[in-house]
């Protein structure tokens, strides 16, 4: 039986879709069977980030409404053959997704895949609640910035009350994934410190993804950053986060620790 992981945040633009793609690809590269589901009905983007936008025939809503079979709608990644994508629908009907419909998709996926990663839409409305509804594990993507931390706190509240696990008296395993972390600014005291964020949210850390040009380059090319530039600091941080998600215990290293004194003197950027 696979694990259902929701990638969520409350706030928009913090990197949910990028992180879903990067974590999914990193897990699949280790041989795990991974399905990515885009829950952002009306504003799908995971297909674009994965470089599969021209291969979308059927979508999540088609499957829940019985128009297409799950096997017809799943798009197999061209680079990793254990990685699949179920795109969101572009319909403007907000009620196109129902709890029963989502259940009917997640149940069979859990049986065939090791990981089912649900890319949540922003906000705390129906779409976000359906994305987390069947989750066993939650990755809360947070920027070290006040509005993002506040919204993560609200999402944690929802994870503890509105998920199936919460209603059964069980818990969803929660992890914080810090993205867009700028070490230089943090050192100057301009950015919330990691331990402050973790203390405020009282949730353990899955990884720290440094701010990096490589993330935008990967999006431009339609390739998860972990595949596109595997040696980049952000990509390495995602690979490590994926290994932690899979149960490995790895020491947490600040992303720029590898930047040597020579690089600093020459003014070279870390990423």
């Amino acid at each position, binding site marked *: 039986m696979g694990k259902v992981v929701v990638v969520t945040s409350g706030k928009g633009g913090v990197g949910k879709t990028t992180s879903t793609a990067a974590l999914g690809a990193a897990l699949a590269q280790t041989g795990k069977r991974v399905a990515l589901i885009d829950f952002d009905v009306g504003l799908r983007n995971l297909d674009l980030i994965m470089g599969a936008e021209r291969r979308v025939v059927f979508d999540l809503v088609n499957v829940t409404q019985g128009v297409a079979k799950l096997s017809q709608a799943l798009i197999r990644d061209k680079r990793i053959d254990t990685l699949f994508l179920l795109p969101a629908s572009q319909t403007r009907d907000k009620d196109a997704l129902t709890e029963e419909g989502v259940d009917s998709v997640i149940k069979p996926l859990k049986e065939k895949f090791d990981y089912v990663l649900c890319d949540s839409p922003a906000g705390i409305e129906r779409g976000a609640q359906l994305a987390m509804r069947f989750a066993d594990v939650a990755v809360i993507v947070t920027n070290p910035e006040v509005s993002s931390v506040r919204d993560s*706190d609200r999402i944690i509240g929802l994870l503890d009350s509105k998920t199936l696990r919460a209603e059964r008296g069980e818990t969803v395993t929660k992890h914080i994934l810090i993205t867009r972390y700028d070490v230089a600014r943090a050192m*100057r005291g301009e950015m919330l410190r990691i331990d*402050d964020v973790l203390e405020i949210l009282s949730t353990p850390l899955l990884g720290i993804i440094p701010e990096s040009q490589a993330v935008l380059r990967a999006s431009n090319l339609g390739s998860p950053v972990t595949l596109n530039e595997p040696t980049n600091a952000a990509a390495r941080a995602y690979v490590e986060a994926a290994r932690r998600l899979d149960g490995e215990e790895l020491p947490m290293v600040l992303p720029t620790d590898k930047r040597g004194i020579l690089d600093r003197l020459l003014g070279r950027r870390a990423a």
Partner: protein
Amino acid sequence: MTVFDLFRRRTSAPVARERLQVLLAYERKNRNQPDLVGVLRDEIMAVLARHVQIDPENVQVTMDRGDTMSTLEIDVQIPNVGTMQMAASF
């Protein structure tokens, strides 16, 4: 970054932390409860409306939440014409 920056302590991140801690403590406590300010405002307005005609445009509600005490200010403009008696009884 200069050496000077290392010793400079007037930074914004600690302020962000403090503000978040206060705010989230409040929000967590009130998450599943009705909005007190909203309830107070509506009930006070209902009482006033029983006695005088109030134009909702002329009502200002402000609130300031402090660590130990909060203030709620409701500023209502009551028209004078035909309501002098009411005003006197306030």
